[in-house]
């Protein structure tokens, strides 16, 4: 269509409250943006539920390990005890006499670390690539797009197996780094699309006419406009990193110097815990992973409703 014509009707005021049109100009009848969001945030059941569960698990992860009576890897106790209060084996012991509670809380802590680090790295790379591709367009965009697509189709397990063969010891850092460097593509794509739509808005042209350089414009004009989107994206990357880590651990590619939730599940399956009815070994880690990731996703859906007025019920 034309570029020179007003393809929209004249300035919307009071009588046409379409989707996101604001209240009458003379007397703003709604609360300031942030307060309004807070108002809806506290009323949104999904957000409150998701946030509570996540925070509860986080507190447990921080405080829990201090309450453990035995180190997680120590072969101290009796074998295959059910949960009991004796000797502080609250979650029982494994087939090999390790304290399940200690392992569980240790694993929980690791899960949050992997989520933050892995998710953080993925977010950082995704933002770098996505913003640049969306802002620059042209040849830079084409190259970054190709890069994104290539990383997207890399068979991560195969690469990890090769890496595992070369590294003597794999720590939680290596795992986080690996997850971060392989899960950024979808974030980059989403951010590129969002950036595209914002770059054509006149306020970006205005910022250029004010002499701002490109990076300042991206971080001070465009990113703040997407702040809700970035926030939600980070939450998804966080949850995704935890899930990927659990999967990698389960097939034996996890860190070699500690025990995580996924590894607990792997060991329990290897040692036939299901057949031996050692439910306290695999149920806690499984439920924990489900709880964290699930509540993060539920929180995200709730946040979407809070940020996007069109999804709210009146």
């Amino acid at each position, binding site marked *: 269509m034309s570029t*020179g014509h007003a393809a929209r009707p004249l*300035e919307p005021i009071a009588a046409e409250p379409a989707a996101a049109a604001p209240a009458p100009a003379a007397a703003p009848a709604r609360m300031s943006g942030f307060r309004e969001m807070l108002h809806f945030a506290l009323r949104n059941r999904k957000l409150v539920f998701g946030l509570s569960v996540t925070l509860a698990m986080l507190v447990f992860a921080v405080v829990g390990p201090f309450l453990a009576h035995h180190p997680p890897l120590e072969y101290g106790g009796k074998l295959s005890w059910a949960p009991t209060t004796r000797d502080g084996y609250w979650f029982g012991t494994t087939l090999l006499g390790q304290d399940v509670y200690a392992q569980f809380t240790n694993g929980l802590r690791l899960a949050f670390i992997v989520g933050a680090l892995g998710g953080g790295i993925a977010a950082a790379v995704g933002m770098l690539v996505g913003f640049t591709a969306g802002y620059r367009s042209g040849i830079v965009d084409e190259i970054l797009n190709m890069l994104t697509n290539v990383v997207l189709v890399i068979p991560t397990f195969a690469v990890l197996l090769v890496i595992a063969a070369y590294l003597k010891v794999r720590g939680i850092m290596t795992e986080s780094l690996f997850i971060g460097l392989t899960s950024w593509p979808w974030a980059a794509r989403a951010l590129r699309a969002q950036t595209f739509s914002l770059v054509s808005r006149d*306020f970006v*042209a205005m910022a250029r006419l*004010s*002499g701002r350089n490109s990076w300042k414009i991206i971080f001070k004009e465009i990113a703040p*406009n997407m702040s809700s989107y970035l926030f939600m994206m980070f939450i998804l990357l966080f949850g995704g990193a935890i899930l990927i880590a659990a999967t990698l651990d389960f097939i034996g590619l996890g860190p070699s110097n500690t025990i995580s939730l996924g590894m607990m599940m792997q060991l329990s399956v290897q040692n036939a815990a299901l057949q031996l009815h050692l439910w306290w070994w695999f149920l806690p880690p499984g439920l924990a992973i489900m709880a964290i990731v699930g509540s993060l996703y539920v929180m995200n859906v709730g946040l979407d409703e809070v940020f996007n007025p069109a999804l709210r019920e009146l």
Partner: protein
Amino acid sequence: MLKLEHVSKTYRVGAFGGSELQAVRDVSFDVEPGEVISLIGESGSGKTTIGRMILRLSPITTGRITFDGVDVSTLRRGALKEYYRHVQGVFQDPFSSCNPIFKADRIFALIKDEFFPGVGGSEWRQRLDSSLEAVSLNPTDVLGKFPHQLSGGQLQRLLVARALLLEIKVLVADEIISMLDASTRIDVLNLLGDLKKRGLGIVFITHDLSLGNYISDTTVILRHGSIVEMGPTEQVFGHPQHEYTQMLLASVPQLHTKWADFEQAHDATAV
């Protein structure tokens, strides 16, 4: 002062830029101080593209744009910023021109940050007040408000005030009133007239012939990227030479003359 010489713009379209689209062809004109030149054309005429090229928002494919003798396309960083001290723009949609999550006066803060970092608080406030006065805005009415709390007319004036904080010599006004209500349009247009009297050169881009006729000294009629007719406004409107211009004038709906009567009158005095 501002000179366009044989300026053309070609877009590469398609995957990896296979085919071409020529938006502007061989356009040349000058802008002198105190002169309003309007670029009038329908959609696809290239008028907005020319405005963007003058503002260095789009690169030129061939030709030259010079400001006070200096080729604009060679400017980088510091020199480009200097250019923006003298040449600014205002666009069609006032609500899109202000970042909606910040308050409207942030546009002034941006200018201060980039161009006047050393200026003290009260002196800046003084300059701001005089700029706002020049566009007939009351500071208490417009400062400290979000864009959605102001009207389109107020925002457009704010954007002009922003440009006036710098010592601009040329203002590119791209359809700045087409999104405003009829009763406020004329006030913003009159504002441009006042600025012209103070020596500002204005490139007035519009599709509306009556607005161009009202405000401009020189008129350029564009069609598919090329200049079809150019000259002093009275001449272009009074005695249009090119048949495209004649067709445009005949199609403009007027308040007091019906299309049929206009055609009859002009057929009778056929050029």
